């Protein structure tokens, strides 16, 4: 399978979606819905919520495909996966279900083996990200995952950890900057 060609095909399909081509949207859906549904399920933890989110996400893709800017070098799957994650988090927050999730839940989620299908891997940086997350303090790494996957914010993290808000902020800020310099190494 030619990853570059497949990615290019996805980029072109998004361009056609931006012009209002419904068949192109179906092609994007066929190629990416399993990945996006996996994201929705992980974040929402409920099948029927995840189905609603998935529908909402592809309708958003239909409206916003024009905002996908391949020239900036973002891969189409990164764009789609980020959109899916953000919509799922919005939905989770609206339902307030995340407030009941312990911080540990994010850490317990086993990281599945990286996808066999390289087209669906956002930037091929999964292994590197795992390495860089692994260099952080384990506690802080868990907070970052809890924010990313479970919609936790500074306030709910500080609450759960019994730490002052300012302390939680400086832990996470420092970790984010360390993460960046590690990823750029």
């Amino acid at each position, binding site marked *: 399978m030619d990853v570059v060609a497949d990615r290019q095909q996805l980029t072109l399909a998004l361009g056609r979606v*931006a*012009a*209002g081509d*419904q068949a192109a*949207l179906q092609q994007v859906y066929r190629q990416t*819905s*399993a990945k996006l*549904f*996996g*994201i929705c399920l*992980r974040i929402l933890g409920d*099948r029927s919520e995840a*189905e609603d989110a998935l*529908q909402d996400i592809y*309708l958003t893709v*239909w*409206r916003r*495909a*024009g*905002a996908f800017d391949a020239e*900036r070098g*973002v891969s189409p799957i990164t764009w789609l*996966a*980020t959109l899916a*994650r*953000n919509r799922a*988090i919005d939905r989770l927050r609206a339902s307030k279900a995340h407030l009941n999730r312990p911080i540990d839940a994010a850490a317990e989620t086993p*990281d*599945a083996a*990286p*996808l066999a*299908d390289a087209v*669906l891997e*956002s*930037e091929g*940086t*999964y292994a*590197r*990200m*795992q390495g860089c997350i692994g*260099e952080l303090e384990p506690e802080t790494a868990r907070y*970052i995952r809890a*924010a*990313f*996957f479970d*919609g*936790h*914010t*500074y*306030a709910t993290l500080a609450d759960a950890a019994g730490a002052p808000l300012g302390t939680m902020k*400086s832990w*996470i800020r420092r970790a*984010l*900057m*360390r*993460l*960046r*310099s*590690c*990823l750029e190494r």
Partner: protein
Amino acid sequence: MSDLGPPTGPEDSDEVLAAEYALGVLDPPERDVAERRVLTDPTFAERVDDWRARLAALLDGLAPVAAPEGVWPRIVEGLGALGNVVELRLRRSLVIWRSVSAAAASAAAVLAIVAFMPRAEKPAPVMTSEIAAANKGPVVYVAMMDPARHRVILQPVSMTSTPGRSPELWLIGADGKPVAIGVAEFGKPVELKFNKTPTGAELLAVSIEPVGGSPTGQPTGPVVATGKLQLL
């Protein structure tokens, strides 16, 4: 590995804010401020995009799950209901728009508006703004603002009507908080009054709202276009 200290300058604090926003860890008031920055500050928006791309690697660890069969038909149904969404029409018109000289076309629109402006007793600074869709998209409205008289005329340039919705004009100051100016029209110019005296450093933004304008006093629908104010 060297440990970075706390942020030291505005550039660093922007980088931190972009990272926090992309991660989603900000609490509502700060999140709103960051969201406005994304809409109004392209450099900041790029930083957020970069962080989103970095963090997206976390999503690669999740196993794909086949979507249930019923979802696609529901999406098709939803497409029918969306039909005439402005954002989509804007993208389409972008192609047409680029084929004409954007500068000439908007200059013509400004001239068209000058004809609408009531003559002032004495010359006062008048500000204009080309309100364009994101990512260097087409100019959708041109605004002529008369700060002294607290009036603004909003002339549609390439705005397509959406049934059951109203465009609403907002003034966004340095604090990133949108202040409602008023409800506009898709297809004809309107003159709106406002209370706040603009300094010229603000941005104008147009969002798509329920008919009659946002029920909350803040944009509830998509912000489809923004523009800087400049002296005419």
